[in-house]
């Protein structure tokens, strides 16, 4: 894939298994967002193709099978939370039952906020409503381009957990961009490591054997080894550990 004459992604061939949570990690400008936009069909690769469930991404538009959470929540500013979900269902040609909307809002922790317009919502509430909108029609693929980047670590943790729970329940595949390797190890089943400067082939790592990482706990040895391997791929160097420094004024 080249953008503005510069090759961004090169020689990339991946197969993401159904139901996976694939985190895309890499340094800034390496092509994480470009990869996600190619998968969504919002960018056309210079050469090559993207296939989702045997179809090009464009064929899935309008069915609710493919959802995208952008960095901004991109809510409809003139609609309340309830109206947002009603319009989403209407655009997919589905009836908007009150019970179903209540359930969705409560699922993302927005019960009682159904009459709120986006301008009255916090960044976290907007992200929650965007999640509810994405899961309105049980997507088979959800793409997330750092939608929680503007949130504090606790809220981000909470929303990541929420999305992964909904992913498991809906059985959908989630592909998400993050800068945080530890976050990727905690919530992903697979990691796509984009090497800095296209120096190495892109790797898809299966984290299936990795032990679960509890919130706030230190990383087990296997996770530490995986973290170092990922950092070596994406940054091109091994991390420096156990540094002690003294500053003399």
């Amino acid at each position, binding site marked *: 894939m080249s953008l503005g004459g510069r090759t961004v992604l090169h020689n990339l061939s991946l197969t993401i298994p159904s139901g996976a949570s694939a985190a895309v990690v890499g340094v800034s400008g390496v092509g994480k967002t470009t990869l996600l936009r190619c998968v*969504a069909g919002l960018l056309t690769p210079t050469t090559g193709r993207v296939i989702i469930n045997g179809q090009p991404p464009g064929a899935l*538009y309008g069915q609710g099978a493919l959802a995208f959470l952008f*960095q901004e929540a991109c809510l*409809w500013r*003139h609609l309340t939370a309830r109206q947002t979900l009603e319009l989403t269902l209407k*655009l997919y040609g589905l009836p908007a039952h009150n019970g179903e909307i209540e359930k969705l809002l409560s699922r993302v922790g927005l019960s009682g906020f159904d009459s709120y*317009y986006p*301008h009255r919502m916090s960044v976290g509430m907007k992200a929650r409503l965007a999640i509810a909108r994405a899961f309105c029609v049980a997507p088979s693929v959800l793409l997330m381009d750092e939608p929680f980047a503007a949130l504090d670590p606790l809220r981000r943790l909470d929303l990541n957990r929420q999305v992964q729970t909904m992913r498991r329940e809906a059985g959908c595949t989630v592909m998400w961009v993050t800068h945080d390797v530890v976050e990727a190890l905690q919530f992903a089943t697979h990691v796509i490591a984009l090497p800095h400067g296209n120096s190495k082939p892109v790797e898809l790592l299966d984290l299936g054997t990795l032990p679960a990482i509890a919130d706030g706990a230190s990383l087990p040895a296997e996770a530490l080894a995986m973290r170092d391997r990922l950092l070596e791929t994406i940054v091109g160097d091994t991390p420096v550990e156990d540094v002690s420094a003294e500053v003399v004024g």
Partner: protein
Amino acid sequence: MTDSRTVRDPATLLAGASIAVAILLGWEILGESSTSVRLLLSSPVRTVSYVIGHFGEAGQSFLYTGMESLLGLAVATAFALAFGAVCVYHPRIGSISFPLLVASQVIPLVCLAPMIILVFGPGPSGKVFLSALIGFFPILTNVVSGIRSVPSASQEVMLLMAAPKAQVIRHVVIPHCMDHFFAGMRIAAPLSVIGAIVAEFNGADIGVGKDIFISAKRLEPELMMSGIAAGAILSGLIYGLVLLLERRLGPWYWER
């Protein structure tokens, strides 16, 4: 913590009202200070007496100019919205016509008034035309900048839903452009009154502009001051109408 609503507290309102009363009082004293000043400047009391005494004619002029201004603003709005959409959605047309339009703004539109009256005659059409011409540009530039600033991600959300173009315009473009559109309208509202009055200076059977123009020739300060006051009230009323329209959009717009 203070916000814009602080200016509406009773103390601020009282201070504003006191300044207004002081200005009117000073104006009244000055207007009645000597015979020569009385010939040039009408005091507030004399102006009000004049309007009461000539309520029919003054009211007719007020309504006539008001109608021309409102029609001018409506025409300007309709053309600015249509042309703005064409400029954005057909970039080739936009890239040719928009710079020309910007360049055309170097012509002071009031200089065109005599020519416009010659072409349209002394009836209301020339006044509506000039009023529309003067209000068109601020609305257009704001609408174009509003449409261009719609976030691409918001449109892509709709693309993934395969939403029809009409739905994208209704739920993404229009709500996003409202701030820009009304910013243009707030500038265009008083300009539309200026356009109508300037056109009336150049030939009219009736109107506030004609009254002001004649008053200078006849040395009638009461008529002049009532015309000036009528122009100011008209501008304020049309501006208020625009604000009222904004309020009608709902809490999502004015609460933000």
